[in-house]
């Protein structure tokens, strides 16, 4: 026995695990974890974000959409520019209207006075470069009858000349304005044609053959646009309601019921009002289906 009683003899016989060995084990474990989480050994797991589609409601929903984009439209600008309710407005306004009405009334007014020989050369070059397709025939047709008039009335006073020049200047400005509008309209038309022509209407993940958007995405967009509720009407932002919609054989809304109501009556009423807008709008792609829709304020505020 050791003379110092505080030194225990028993410990020497023990096979205790060395702390150094444990340090090495710990270091190895940390290194392995570091390698695992840094993506050197295992690739980092990244969940792909849920796709968000912007659906143009002009495109009809179909059951089996083909691959394409749901936010493009067909290019009907060439034939009839006024089928749609709201979207095609800029096309018909810009393309057909400006050249015709502006040219007619203003060209008619300066006809009686004499100084027409002067304006004749001006309008000729102007319409040619600016409005390429349409104004040519009109500009050509009008000056023909004017020529004989100028020959009949050679006397021109200064006042008349001044008034005519101001009128011509106005006409010139308006024509320039019309030309700019034409260009803008042409650019817009070209852009629409390009998107609609290059990318077909469909869904990004569509594998079918039908031209249109997925019925679920369409329904979601429709309800989103039909839902009207101000955040000031409800004090909370965590409200959520779930509703089951049943469609009949024609695709009309046959029945709806709450599977989960929110705690707020105004919120639920607004949801019902949005859903009821489907009642008069048969959607063949939804015929005979039953859809579960979740309404929450986050989606509404995102609009």
């Amino acid at each position, binding site marked *: 026995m050791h003379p110092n009683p505080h030194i225990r003899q028993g410990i020497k016989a023990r096979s*205790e*695990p060395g*702390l150094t060995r444990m*340090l090495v084990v*710990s270091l190895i474990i940390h290194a392995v974890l570091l390698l695992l989480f*840094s993506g050197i050994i295992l690739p980092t797991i990244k969940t792909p974000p849920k796709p968000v589609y912007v659906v143009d409601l002009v495109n009809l929903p179909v059951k089996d959409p083909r691959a394409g984009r749901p936010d493009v439209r067909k290019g009907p600008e060439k034939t009839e520019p006024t089928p749609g309710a709201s979207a095609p407005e800029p096309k018909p306004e810009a393309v057909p209207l400006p050249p015709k009405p502006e040219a007619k009334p203003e060209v008619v007014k300066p006809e009686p006075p004499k100084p027409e020989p002067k304006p004749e050369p001006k309008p000729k070059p102007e319409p040619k470069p600016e409005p390429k397709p349409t104004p040519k025939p009109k500009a050509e047709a009008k000056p023909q009858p004017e020529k004989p008039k100028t020959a009949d009335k050679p006397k021109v006073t200064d006042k008349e000349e001044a008034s005519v020049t101001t009128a011509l200047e106005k006409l010139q400005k308006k024509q320039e304005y019309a030309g700019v509008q034409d260009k803008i309209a042409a650019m817009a038309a070209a852009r629409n044609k390009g998107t609609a022509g290059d990318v077909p209407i469909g869904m990004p993940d569509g594998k079918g053959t039908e031209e249109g958007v997925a019925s679920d995405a369409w329904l979601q967009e429709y309800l989103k646009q039909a839902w009207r509720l101000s955040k000031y009407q409800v004090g909370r932002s965590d409200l959520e309601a779930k509703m089951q919609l049943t469609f009949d054989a024609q695709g009309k809304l046959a029945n709806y019921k709450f599977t989960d109501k929110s705690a707020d009556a105004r919120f639920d009423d607004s949801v019902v009002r949005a859903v009821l807008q489907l009642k008069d709008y048969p959607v063949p792609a939804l015929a005979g289906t039953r859809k579960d829709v979740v309404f929450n304020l986050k989606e509404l505020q995102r609009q």
Partner: protein
Amino acid sequence: MDLVLNAGPVVKLVLLLLVYFSVVSWAIIFYKFLVIHRATRDSDQFLDFFWAKKRFDVINQGLRDYPNSPLTVLFREGYQELLKIQGRRPGEDEGHLSTDLGGAENVARALRRATTLETHRLEKFTTTLATTGSTAPFVGLFGTVWGIMDAFRGIGESGSASLAVVAPGISEALVATAIGLIAAIPAVMGYNHFMHKVNVLTGEMDNFSQEFLNIVERMMRRG
């Protein structure tokens, strides 16, 4: 990984310190787990052996089978103290003891000393766990505060307070707090667990000491 690599030097230093804390605390956790597990297992087996045998000399010979039990140390210390008392009276046999020279008290003191030493052995390194558990979050917080200071200085220099400018610096800074918590949480859990186990073993040692003293006193009274 990019968050760590893009951090400033102070934050990197803090992260390195926290990794060191984590490595050491996990090494202690493994070490204490093995030590206390073996101590508990051997103590249970030794107690069965102790109550099965009637003679101290037989028990003393069997102590080598339970090397990790703190109770074997207590028994050895008490038995050796008992032999010392016997040695003062060479003419007397074993089992012919008396309390006239305070022999039982000597044994009690030896047992108390052994209990203290064994408790210290079992609690060894747990203070490091406690220190890691209590300081690592603050060290991490220091790194975060420093990183946010850096980030705000950068924002001031760039003149833009958009989320794209603010967010990366703050997320880099917050990594330090996260690593601090990762180091501290297992340390605190391990400390609480091992202290509970040590308390249980200390209780067993106290009970064993009392039983040992009772036996010694009975033997001395029998004379």
